[in-house]
């Protein structure tokens, strides 16, 4: 068994203005340097769970968290649900990066897009920024396409390139965990396979949690899979076991496409 990097303990989440929780007592381990896939039909709460892991929900007021989400590091564990101060939120998000469904390039040059997070993190040294941007673009497999136009607008890139740029932007911060929220559902098959390849290379350095609707993607990419249904975690196991030999009937029905 590999090491834990994050785990949720009896974690429940209720959206503002709603009575019933959208996530009910979720207990999910996230293993270090592995890819964990969250699957399940629309509305099952997988994106909600993912968005709790860097507390992006806190952009909107009055959402309710219960239980624990522990983030492990060399200094022990920290329950991220206890974070209250803006500075601690910023640190959390530097440790836990996020990629969205639609590419979200900022309206600035390719270079500045990647440098932006570094500047937010307080990196001032020009040569260091230069180096880290270049490394991030290289490890996101987009350096060759962008090196000659680093200072042109990122909005002129294709969707797939933009998504890889967003990954580079997150990678530049050297996060411990990266959360992917259906990162390829807005992309064509060729860009999708480029992103998938990239994600599986990334796990050398970073733990990955990916929400996906695409069963093949989950089985191709991930080491562990969690199946969620109506706010409950139904089953969690190694991906090959989940796909070959699920314990729950519900999981089997979903994976074989009987519903969803």
């Amino acid at each position: 068994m590999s090491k834990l990097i994050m785990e949720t303990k009896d974690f429940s989440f209720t959206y503002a203005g709603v009575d019933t929780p959208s996530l009910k007592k979720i207990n999910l381990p996230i293993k270090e340097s592995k890819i964990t896939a969250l699957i399940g039909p629309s509305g099952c709460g997988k994106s909600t769970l993912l968005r709790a892991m860097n507390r992006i929900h806190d952009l909107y007021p009055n959402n309710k968290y219960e239980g624990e989400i522990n983030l492990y590091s060399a200094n022990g564990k920290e329950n991220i649900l206890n974070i209250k101060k803006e500075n601690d939120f910023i640190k959390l998000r530097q440790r836990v990066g996020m990629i969205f469904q639609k590419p979200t390039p900022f309206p600035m040059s390719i270079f500045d897009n990647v440098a932006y997070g570094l500047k937010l993190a307080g990196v001032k040294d020009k040569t260091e920024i230069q180096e880290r941007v270049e490394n991030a673009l290289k490890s996101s497999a987009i350096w060759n396409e962008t090196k000659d136009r680093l200072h042109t607008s990122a909005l002129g890139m294709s969707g797939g390139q933009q998504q890889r740029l967003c990954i580079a932007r997150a990678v530049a911060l050297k996060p411990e965990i990266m959360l992917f929220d259906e990162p390829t559902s807005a992309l064509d098959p060729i860009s999708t396979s480029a992103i998938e390849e990239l994600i599986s290379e990334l796990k050398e350095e970073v733990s990955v949690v990916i929400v996906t609707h695409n069963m093949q993607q989950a089985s191709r990419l991930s080491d562990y899979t969690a199946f969620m249904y109506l706010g409950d975690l139904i089953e969690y196991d190694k991906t090959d076991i989940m796909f070959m030999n699920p314990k729950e009937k519900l999981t089997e029905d979903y994976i074989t496409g009987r519903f969803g």
Partner: protein
Amino acid sequence: MNRLLLNKIILMLSTLSAIIGISFLFWILATLTYKGVSSIHLSTFSQDLVNGGIRNLLVGQFTMAIIASLIAVPLGMFAGIWLREYSNGSKLASIIRNLSDVMMSAPSIVIGVFVYALFVAPFGGYNGFAGIIALAIMMIPIIISTTDNMLALVPKELREAGVALGGSKHKIILQIVIKSAKVGITTGVLLSFARIIGETAPLLFTSANSQFFTMDLTEQFPSLTVSIYNLATYPDEASRELAWSASFILTAIVLIINLTGRYMTRNKK
């Protein structure tokens, strides 16, 4: 057969309506150009109203409109940012949004009267500041609504992406969200400037008018639009000719600003 006939009738009616509408516009432009251009001389721009030119009027009108913009643009933008980014759809926000929309269609003469009561009567006379305040009041709701609407077009994922990279909310709003909405907001500012530069009613009894060149905002202040209103009612031919050329110049200014605004929107990425 019936459907085709109906189609033709509707097509004809709508074409006709469009032609009628547009022909009035061209009629106005043609008359203005014809009557206005012929009475423009070099002295029109080099002399003040007292000597039969409009130099002081142009300077006065722009001075008031620019200072009004300097007040209204930041105020309106911050209000718009609060409405869209910080209010979280509270009740207060929807009241303010509605009020601002109502203000946008408030008759400009009413704004003039209001400012007269507050900033002219108590100070014992017309003054440039009062005119500036009236123009700013007209402009603020337009800026609020433009900012609000343009920020609404920025996808929420962009804000989330910024925050997910470790940005604080205000940094993301100032450095990314506003930047994405920049073209739209700038266009809105230009169009609202074009709107107030051509206003007469809010100035009529706030800053009133002056025949002389002045930069003293505590006195009556020269205004192109109010002068057109006055000159057009004078009996002598020279005054009326000056009114025509002043109208032509004003229209040209408004048209150029408007076209610039629209050109910018069209070329945005």
